[in-house]
């Protein structure tokens, strides 16, 4: 028998070679760019032996939109809208990362109220992003129902963010020097508090019952796709992927930006509760627990929000930014999101380099994906929670 499946044509089904030897070779498999489990347009080139994966090569670039090059052509305020399109599941976090870099370059003092508003919206965005992570991860594991439940709660967040920013998905809310709009005068803070209380007390329990502690779910994920601490360091993993391996690192705590130093919250890490530290279930559970912590931050930020202006400077006209370079790193929902901006003193950036967390997190698949089953690879990609908009930019 001949297992050369890729050479099957209309002429022959199994052609033995002349010596009549049995030979087998690995099967090349294109997973994506159009595949339900690759979370967008990721293409994975697999070499498989039956169900076992022998080699994984991620092929990127299907969503490349030259965002960094465009930054050299548009002014600083205009480029905020492009950051929305990086991680379109948590655009507030991306906005936040960019404006902190520009502010560092311009040396602007941001009003306290604006910082609080930024924290609240960014954390709401983080919750929304983590909800999608849970939902799609459940879908990858074949559980359909949590998807709808998580999207139902995300819808609430979108409504809240729509009321404050005017946009449902791409907000363009933060600008260098503050935020665009103040809190709407229709009891917005109260509604946010009500929502996070509902999420903390009721919905998270539902998810845990339905999905997290489901027997089949745990069987599928414990000891699967174990990412060692050394590998995570080597490949530059950050965010829930790094924390899932048991490393307590979070930019909000370890390199505080904005007003995060004022708030009291914990950093959940993977504990190996159902298997090994750093398996898919740990990465998943870190996200669930981060939702709780985000709720805590939002509550504190809203309760201590000072009165005052929400925008330091009116950036009506394109401003000139002093020459120099600045790098800031922030904790987005996917990990450490950094912006390196070089200014030559003009109205546009000379160079804007983005360090996107999903890009670094994805690389590890080349190492961890080898030797797994195809189903486990799907679980592993799902547990990384990548967003292709951020990888390709």
């Amino acid at each position: 028998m001949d297992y050369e499946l890729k050479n099957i044509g209309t002429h022959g089904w199994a052609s033995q070679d002349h010596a009549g030897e049995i030979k087998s070779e690995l099967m090349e498999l294109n997973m994506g760019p159009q595949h339900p489990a690759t979370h967008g347009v990721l293409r994975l080139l697999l070499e498989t032996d039956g169900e076992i994966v022998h080699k994984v090569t991620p092929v990127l670039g299907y969503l490349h939109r030259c965002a960094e090059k465009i930054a050299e052509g548009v002014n600083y305020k205009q480029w905020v809208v492009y950051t929305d399109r990086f991680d379109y599941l948590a655009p507030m976090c991306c906005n936040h990362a960019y404006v902190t870099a520009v502010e560092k370059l311009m040396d602007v003092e941001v009003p306290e109220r604006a910082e609080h508003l930024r924290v609240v919206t960014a954390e709401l965005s983080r919750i929304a992003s983590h909800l999608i992570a849970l939902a799609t991860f459940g879908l990858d594991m074949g559980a359909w129902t949590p998807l709808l439940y998580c999207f139902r709660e995300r819808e609430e967040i979108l409504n809240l963010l729509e009321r404050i920013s005017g946009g449902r998905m791409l907000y363009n809310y933060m600008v260098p020097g503050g935020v665009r709009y103040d809190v709407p005068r229709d009891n917005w803070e109260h509604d946010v508090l009500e929502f996070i209380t509902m999420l903390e007390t009721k919905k998270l329990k539902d998810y845990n019952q339905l999905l997290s502690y489901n027997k089949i779910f745990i069987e599928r994920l414990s000891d699967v796709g174990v990412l060692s601490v050394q590998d995570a360091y080597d490949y530059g993993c950050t965010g829930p992927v790094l924390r899932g391996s048991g490393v307590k690192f979070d930019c909000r705590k370890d390199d505080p930006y904005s007003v995060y130093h004022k708030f009291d919250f914990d950093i959940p890490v993977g504990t190996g509760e159902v298997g090994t530290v750093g398996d898919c279930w740990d990465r998943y559970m870190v996200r669930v627990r981060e939702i709780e912590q985000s709720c805590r931050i939002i509550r504190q930020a809203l309760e201590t929000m000072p009165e005052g202006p929400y925008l330091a400077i009116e950036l009506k006209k394109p401003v000139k930014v002093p020459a120099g370079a600045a790098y800031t790193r922030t904790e987005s929902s996917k990990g450490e999101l950094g912006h390196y901006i070089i200014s030559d003193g003009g109205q546009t950036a000379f160079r804007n380099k983005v360090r996107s967390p999903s890009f670094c997190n994805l690389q590890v698949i080349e190492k961890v994906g080898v030797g797994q089953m195809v189903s486990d690879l799907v679980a592993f990609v799902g547990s990384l929670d990548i967003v292709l908009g951020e990888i390709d930019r």
Partner: protein
Amino acid sequence: MEILSDLIRSMVGEGMSDQGVFISAAVTMATIMFIVMAMCAIIFTWMERKVAGFIQSRYGPMRTGRWHGWAQAIADMLKILGKEDIIPAEANKALFMFGPILVLLGSLLAWAAIPWDRNFVAADLDLGLFYIFAVSSMVIIGILMSGWASNNKWALYGAARGAAQMVSYEIPLALATIPVVMATGSLNTQDIVIAQGGGMWNWYINPVNNPFLFVAFFMYFIASIAETNRGPFDMPETESELVAGYHTEYTGMRFAFFFLSEYANLFLVSLIAAMVFLGGWQAPFPFLEFIPGWVHFIIKGVMLVFLNMWVRWTLPRVRVDQLMHLCWKVMIPISLLCVVGAGIWMMVTGQAAA
């Protein structure tokens, strides 16, 4: 069948030969069965959407046909009829075209031995239960055939998984019904149902009569989910891993054949469960016997279908090796134990058929 033959004979008079009467009765019966099967596919597609919607806190179809989207499945069928029938250039055309027909045939043939009522069974075979399991194995060949002929690697994965899964799960499926056959002393489907008459305490599922039959019912139910390739055991399709599994390359009516057969199979295994363990067309209480038997039978079947859908929309999917582990190392030993245990129980309590 006899009643139908008598009816035909009375209508056409004595001018018709016995063979002619038999053939016309058989054709009538086959047509009825096919219509029932097509109807159940349409009804269960709609039901699946409504059940999924109910579980997922949404409505499901609401527009087509005004009342709760009842015409949605019909509209889908009409749409699918109008679709282009694409056969991939590199596919093996003969096998590609034959595969879905075999799948449909496998699930259709088994319907012949289902007893709907006291006097209403298309083929009253002495080996009825055996016949059902024998012909429904044909589905495996159809799936393997279409997955291989598609010349698509995902389809091949789906077909290989499907064949492995269905061949494995036929064993606990059949083993779980063996205790019932032992208790009845017959493989005839009608005999099995008649033996359970007189109220729900006489059904084989009642653990007081024989606890091993109670366990066997659950073995049968789990194996039947795997046998119909539905979640959490939908390995051959696994939309998040294998795109659409063995029917990735199929379009139009050929795809509809798979679809039809999935729901026909779903109802079929539920009806078999109702027939073997839940008393078939027998009423649950003697005072309900005025309701026709087929109504009882269909209600029991639909309830099991609902249970199946409930499981599907609640649980995540197991991995393919865990699925095999469950079959060979858990379910087959338990099923075998049920066979032995049921036999011993019957000997000890003196229930053994003479």
